[in-house]
């Protein structure tokens, strides 16, 4: 159940084949929802759930789906899961769901999900597909959480809504929040810096 091969499916998307920093997928939502940590975390969780279960379902159906209409079938499965996630968010964390607004619905178009289904779930058994979905969701999530943490801390001086900088009393020294951090362009630069750090540590990832 947890052979080395399966574990690798879980861990490699966290660094070596990270969906955001290596495959450069799902960038839009990574820029749009990471101004605060909480929505970023909820978004990461939602995408992980959708990726895992859509991979699982498609993998179970893979031998019965005619290949000419497979995209339609995949979309139906993914859309159903996204609506489910959206309803749950609205029921239990309404404020976060309002902040995420349209981006929950847009999980359907997230390249990571379709990418994993097309590249992995269609050719593998349900259990590895499920683990692969979780792994890629987490790889996406870890970048989102890092971005959300950095942007919220430097942009608003809070972490998960808790006013860290105010409690330390750093504002008395003349420090001011950096409002550029809350704008999407800075998120893009932050992603760039993460990619820079990752590639300088792991030379194999540098393109020729």
């Amino acid at each position, binding site marked *: 159940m947890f052979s080395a091969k399966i574990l690798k499916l879980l861990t490699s998307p966290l660094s070596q084949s990270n969906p955001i920093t290596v495959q450069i997928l799902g960038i839009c939502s990574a820029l749009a929802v990471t101004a605060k940590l909480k929505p970023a975390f909820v978004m990461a969780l939602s995408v992980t759930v959708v990726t895992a279960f859509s991979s699982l379902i498609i993998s179970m159906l893979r031998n019965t789906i005619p290949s000419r209409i497979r995209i339609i079938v995949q979309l139906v499965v993914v859309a159903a899961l996204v609506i489910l996630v959206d309803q749950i968010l609205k029921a239990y964390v309404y404020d976060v769901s309002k902040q995420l607004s349209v981006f929950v619905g847009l999980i359907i178009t997230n390249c990571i999900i379709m990418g994993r289904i097309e590249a992995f779930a269609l050719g593998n058994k349900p259990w590895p597909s499920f683990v692969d979905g979780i792994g890629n969701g987490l790889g996406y999530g870890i970048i989102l959480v890092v971005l959300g943490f950095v942007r919220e801390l430097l942009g608003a001086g809070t972490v998960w809504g808790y006013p860290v900088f105010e409690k330390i009393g750093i504002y008395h020294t003349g420090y*001011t929040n950096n409002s*550029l*951090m809350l704008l999407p362009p800075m998120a893009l630069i932050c992603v760039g810096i993460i990619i820079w750090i990752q590639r300088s540590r792991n030379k194999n990832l540098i393109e020729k």
Partner: protein
Amino acid sequence: MKALRNIVDKMKPNFEKGGKFSKLHSTFDAFETFLFVPKTVTRQGSHIRDCNDMKRVMIVVVVALLPALLFGMYNVGLQHFRAVGLPDAALMQCFWFGFLKVMPIVLVSYIVGLGIEFGVAQARGHEVNEGFLVSGMLIPLVMPVDIPLWMVAVATAFAVVIGKEVFGGTGMNIFNPALLARAFIFFSYTPFISGEKVWVAGLTKGEGIVDGFSGATPLTDAANALAEGAGTVTYTGGSGPMDWFLGTIPGCIGETSTLAILIGAAILLYTGVASWRVMLSVFAGGYLMGLLFNLIGLNAVMDMPAYYHLILGGFAFGAVFMATDPVTGSQTNAGKLIYGFLIGAIAVLIRVVNPGYPEGMMLSILFMNAMAPLIDHYVVEANIRRRNRRLKLAK
């Protein structure tokens, strides 16, 4: 001079390969070539290839910036003494006050920027890039005088690392580093670089303001008139176009005096360091755009005489020192004309149409920096097509 040369020569072997301090080779090389013209000329990077090396070219620009810097220091003092009700302060008194206010900003910009440059060069083992000699002087000149020093440090670090080193150092950057530093502060710490108080030393801390004194720049006045829907713009800084041309008005440290900037422009043009095509076409673009808005004439700002735009705000400074940057601008002659013209036109467009940004020069130059390669591409394509046609006709 000879004694200095001897000292440098004696120290040199220590820094060569295998010497005691060979790790510090980049640092030593930077100082040696700064003091003496080296035997090598620039071979790559920025496209300047003649008997001068890059450091000499950069020094000319720094010299051209001196009039603006010196006048800026004087003006900082002048505005301050006007604000506290001592309009008759002596020239030297004004200058000394301004000197003490401006010098820390210059020092912070140079220390942070050169610190990073030296560190990176040392780590990568190549020679120190000269570009920052100019950027380090440009950054303080486009800052308001009351800017907190740590913001200058953060912005300079951002501009050097993200704006330049990431792309491969001097000669490889897409955007003008000095403007990038200003844009960083503009979007990060907006209240510290816009509004009516930051342009005069001490106003933000509420140091005595005389009745009737306003720290607003003429462009802020224009934006206010637009926001209020007033029929005409009421200018509070200076008594008219002559004051604006001389620069005795509130504004960024180096940008107020069009006269001092024109002296710098003369130096740049005489030595052939900057391109007259860019400079001329920026002014032409701004002026023609101003005339166009005069024709439309829907509100007070559109009715502003077109030449006002050329002497107000950072227009002249941007045209002379920022747009002419050989690295980030267009390279072809026709391209330079288009590039400059659009900078001027877009700057005036932003000023007049968007009340959120009273000054459009920074955004316009950064935008055209990004467009410059595209302009060059089409200029070169057009040239190839023209010559092809000629070839066919000859056949």
